[in-house]
């Protein structure tokens, strides 16, 4: 009766009733915040692993999922954003997840409920928080305003900025300089900046061969797949890519298009792509869950439950990572499955897996077709209560190759389907 009245009220106003009002129950057994690789996978797998008995509400402000992995190919010009996008529809139509297009404004850890921007609130037995990362724009003087005006982009969350950065590169004259700054580790996607530099170099080599890619890295060396990137660059982009370590950005000047560092000389470029340090998404900080340095969320690794709040499980890039565990999409998808298994066990009165493990694979495109990978296996260690890479396991590609280019694109399609379809 109430829903009907609401529908009628909506019709009387000449507007369609808001999706959230019609769909949102007062309570769900599991509420998931964030529909990225972690959150979407958790929503789907809590449903699947509970044989569709546990009800799940997923709250996500974006209309569709856009993948960060592969988005460097949009900047390089060989893919478009549509190819990287997946609808949330199948999570509801195929898996019975209630998908709510909204943003969470507050979490009440005592009452166990979340408040939405639209004014509604929803109670939970278990909360899955997969908020991703926020850029710490305020850590670099001048960056907040330069980013807001669209002059200096990060394009580290795939979407509008990805396309805008591609446009800046297209508009740049031949002979220009593209400067990319890399923040101190840990940050989202360790090999991502070096893949991006490779993609831009690949584009320059075809379209603007007199142009340069300047990598200004806050770290003392390339943080992932260093040997593979260096080898490929020296064989293929020798006159295009220049790598400079130990460059920690302190300020930017969008008017003069310059970047300033704590020690090194300032640098001017035609296109500035500045990646600031990162931390867990704002909702995690606001709720007091970012226990490590007010940046990353401490968790019990066996279940991914927060060390600061009961019944909140945190996934993906936002967590304080176990040793040698990268902030990657594949890792977030793996986190989600271990957490989903623990949540289903707890809500169903079953035993928790005492010995979970995680796998990781990261592919990087060094051209439009050639790829290098890093892979690892992380086994939970009950004594040390953390994950450790299994000795002798994991490793890298021997060199950039086209076969893994095919596998990388198939990996993307399979993990998108595994997370969302």
């Amino acid at each position, binding site marked *: 009766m109430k829903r009907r009245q609401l529908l009628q009220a909506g019709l009387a106003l000449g507007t369609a009733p808001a999706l959230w009002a019609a769909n949102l129950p007062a309570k769900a057994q599991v509420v998931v915040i964030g529909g990225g690789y972690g959150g979407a996978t958790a929503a*789907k797998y809590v449903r699947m692993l509970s044989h569709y008995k546990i009800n799940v509400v997923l709250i996500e402000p974006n209309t569709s999922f856009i993948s960060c992995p592969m988005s460097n190919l949009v900047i390089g010009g060989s893919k478009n954003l549509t190819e990287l996008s997946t609808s949330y529809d199948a999570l509801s139509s195929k898996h019975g997840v209630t998908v709510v297009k909204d943003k969470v404004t507050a979490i009440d850890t005592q009452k166990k409920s979340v408040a939405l921007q639209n004014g509604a609130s929803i109670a939970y037995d278990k909360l899955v928080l997969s908020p991703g990362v926020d850029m710490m724009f305020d850590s670099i003087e001048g960056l907040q305003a330069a980013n807001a005006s669209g002059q200096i982009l990060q394009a580290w969350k795939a979407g509008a900025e990805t396309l805008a950065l591609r446009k800046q590169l297209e508009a740049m004259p031949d002979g220009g300089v593209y400067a990319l700054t890399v923040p101190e580790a840990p940050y989202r996607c360790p090999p991502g900046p070096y893949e991006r530099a490779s993609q831009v170099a690949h584009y320059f080599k075809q379209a603007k061969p007199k142009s340069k890619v300047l990598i200004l890295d806050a770290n003392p060396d390339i943080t992932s797949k260093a040997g593979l990137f260096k080898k490929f660059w020296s064989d293929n982009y020798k006159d295009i890519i220049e790598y400079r370590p130990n460059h920690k950005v302190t300020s930017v000047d969008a008017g003069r298009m310059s970047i300033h560092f704590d020690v090194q000389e300032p640098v001017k470029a035609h296109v500035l792509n500045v990646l600031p340090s990162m931390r867990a998404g704002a909702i995690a900080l606001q709720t007091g869950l970012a226990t490590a340095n007010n940046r990353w969320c401490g968790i019990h690794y066996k279940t991914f439950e927060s060390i600061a709040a009961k019944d909140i499980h945190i996934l993906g890039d936002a967590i304080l990572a176990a040793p040698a565990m990268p902030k990657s999409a594949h890792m977030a998808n793996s986190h989600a499955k271990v957490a989903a298994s623990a949540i289903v066990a707890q809500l169903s009165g079953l035993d928790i897996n005492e010995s979970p493990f995680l796998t990781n*694979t990261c592919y990087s495109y060094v051209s439009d077709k050639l790829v290098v990978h890093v892979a690892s296996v992380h086994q939970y260690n009950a004594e040390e209560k953390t994950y450790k890479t299994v000795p002798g396991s994991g490793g890298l590609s021997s060199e950039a190759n086209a076969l893994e280019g095919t596998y990388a694109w198939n990996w993307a399609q*399979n993990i998108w389907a595994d997370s969302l379809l």
Partner: protein
Amino acid sequence: MHSRFHTLTLVGLLLGLFSLQTFAQDKTSESKALHARADASMCANCHGTEGRAVKDSAVPSIAGLPRDYMVQQMQAFKDGSRPATIMHQITKGLTEAQIASMADYFAALPR
């Protein structure tokens, strides 16, 4: 009357114990099934949910493959006798028990 009461009580107690034991067994086997399924889902990132890859995927589907074949292949990756780009590095991180559990899980699924 007295002895009949005792007999009934005894029967009742035995039935109760029996169902408690069944409950515990159910809980244990359900828990094990949950853990095996979650462990096997670590393959799904590349090989597809429930081992079914997307259409035309170069990374193959593994649902419904014969159990012994899967164990043999994973051991061949592990000892290097079957060349691979990634699977030799992943299988070296898995125990024999984990490999067997995954093979059991996917073999039992329809293709």
